[in-house]
């Protein structure tokens, strides 16, 4: 059965029925992740250790200096508190712009001193998108206290486009990661010789979950180049496969499974930061009908009781 890109692509899907509950669940999970990420002691820690990162951002110098001064005393608690509001869905429309600004500035400070793309890379754009959505139309205090008037149609396409954009963001992260590995093309083959995978697995073993749980390596990491070549090719294959998100929904389950397998393997071998974030964005790969069925069933059960 061939894929009809013209009928199944992401732009067409944005105009299809969505799920108010899917968007609401995403809002809650994103809020929880924001609370977790902004509660880290990393912010206090990076103030103490020397700044060895050489990162750049789009902000002017005066703003960066200001952010340096307010990040820990103000931005961190503000982000945490507004994250709680986002989870509860309270005053959602009003807190989202402030939360977005607060989050982006707080993690600008983080990135300037701790050169790592997690967790902000997964969060900042979906958080920005939520500003333009009706994400508190369900599972929120705004709805409970009638602060907002939700749409009558819980399957409106208004709830679909943000979810598809989040799926697009997921695709961007992985496809760009794959491209970064093979570009410029004259060093792409070099990446595939397995050296990076070996370096990571060999050196991180004594601090990996695999070690903590099993005290045993999967195989001899000091040799066996072919296994590292296979792992390198597989990682790039999975990352590029995510491009199918743009063209069709049919590969979503396969993409989800492959991403989880990849992240779980990385988690075991010492790359710990990304699995939880990938799981949250992967919510966008689930069909909206699933959520409508799930919540309709719940509602019916509650009514019959």
């Amino acid at each position, binding site marked *: 059965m061939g894929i009809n890109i013209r009928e199944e692509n992401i732009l067409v899907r*944005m105009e299809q029925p969505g799920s108010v509950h899917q968007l609401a669940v995403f809002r809650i999970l994103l809020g929880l992740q924001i609370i977790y990420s902004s*509660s880290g002691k990393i912010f206090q820690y990076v103030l103490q250790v020397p700044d*060895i990162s050489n990162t750049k951002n789009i902000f002017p110098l005066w703003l960066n200096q200001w952010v340096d001064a307010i990040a820990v005393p103000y931005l961190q608690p503000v982000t945490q508190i507004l994250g709680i509001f986002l989870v509860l869905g309270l005053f959602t429309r009003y807190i989202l712009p402030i939360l977005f600004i607060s989050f982006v500035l707080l993690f600008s400070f983080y990135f300037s001193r701790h050169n790592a793309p997690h967790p902000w890379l997964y969060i900042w754009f979906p958080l920005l998108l939520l500003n*333009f959505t009706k994400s508190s139309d369900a599972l929120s205090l705004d709805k409970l206290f009638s602060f907002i008037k939700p749409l009558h149609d819980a399957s409106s396409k208004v709830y679909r486009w943000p979810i598809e954009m989040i799926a697009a963001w997921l695709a*961007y992260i992985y496809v*760009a990661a794959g491209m*970064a590995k093979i570009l410029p093309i004259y060093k792409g083959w070099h990446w595939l010789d397995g050296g990076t995978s070996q370096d990571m697995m060999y050196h991180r073993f004594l601090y990996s979950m695999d070690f903590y749980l099993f005290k045993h390596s999967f195989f*001899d990491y000091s040799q066996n180049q072919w296994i590292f070549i296979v792992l390198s090719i597989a990682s790039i294959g999975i990352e590029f496969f995510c491009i199918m998100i743009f063209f069709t929904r049919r590969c979503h389950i396969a993409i989800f499974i492959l991403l989880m397998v990849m992240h779980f393997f990385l988690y075991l071998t010492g790359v*710990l930061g990304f699995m939880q974030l990938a799981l949250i964005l992967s919510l966008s790969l689930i069909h909206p009908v699933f959520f409508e069925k799930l919540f309709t069933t719940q509602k019916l059960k509650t009514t019959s009781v």
Partner: protein
Amino acid sequence: MRWIKEIAFAFVALTLLMTILQTDSLFHYIQTIFLFKIFVLVSIPVIVFWIFMSIRDYLHQRGIFYYCAQTFRSISIPSIAKYVIVIVLLGNFMAIGFGKQHYPFYDVGMYRWPKEYWNRDKTAYEVKYYYQQSGGYKILELRKESSFLLAEHFGWGYSNDIAYATTYFHKGEKENFKFLSHEMKERGIDTLWAGVHSYNFETHELTFDPDICNAININQTSDLYYGPIYIPTYQLEKCDGH
């Protein structure tokens, strides 16, 4: 079928374009490496032809770019959101194209530069902090602490990023040791020492050597991930006194 051809051509042209854009010393390589000069000379006409074809198709209201632009315009998304999406798209496209990052626009290139494969020593070493407990010793497993289920000391707030920073990124800094030492003192552990954890990938033999002088030696002489760890002055002095 036309779409697939267009996408494939765009992929080839963009790969060539990004390779040129991501080559820092472009003119130096053109002058010094003959093959690279040929690559650039072949690439430029391909890229120009792709741009020409794309613009021509767009003006004739056909092709994938025209379809995407028109469909995106017609989707019922708030106008401001559309502008925001386009700005983010362009920002990220620039980041990916040039292979550079300007927060929050990111090329996702943390594993961009490959490490060479080589047959390594069978035994891997890691110098870790440990403390005395009940007549024995206990290793401070820094990355374990970021797991809710496995953490023994730090708990909430000690997430993966700080675990990574303390274990690798800042392991050679005195301030990193001071931070960890302070955290452990709050939990009733006064003194941290550095010892050597090692694992043989062939025999699967796992050992931890609490000998403080051996730790100093291994720290200076072994190929350690992210370089040597910071060893406190009292350990260096105690070892000198032996």
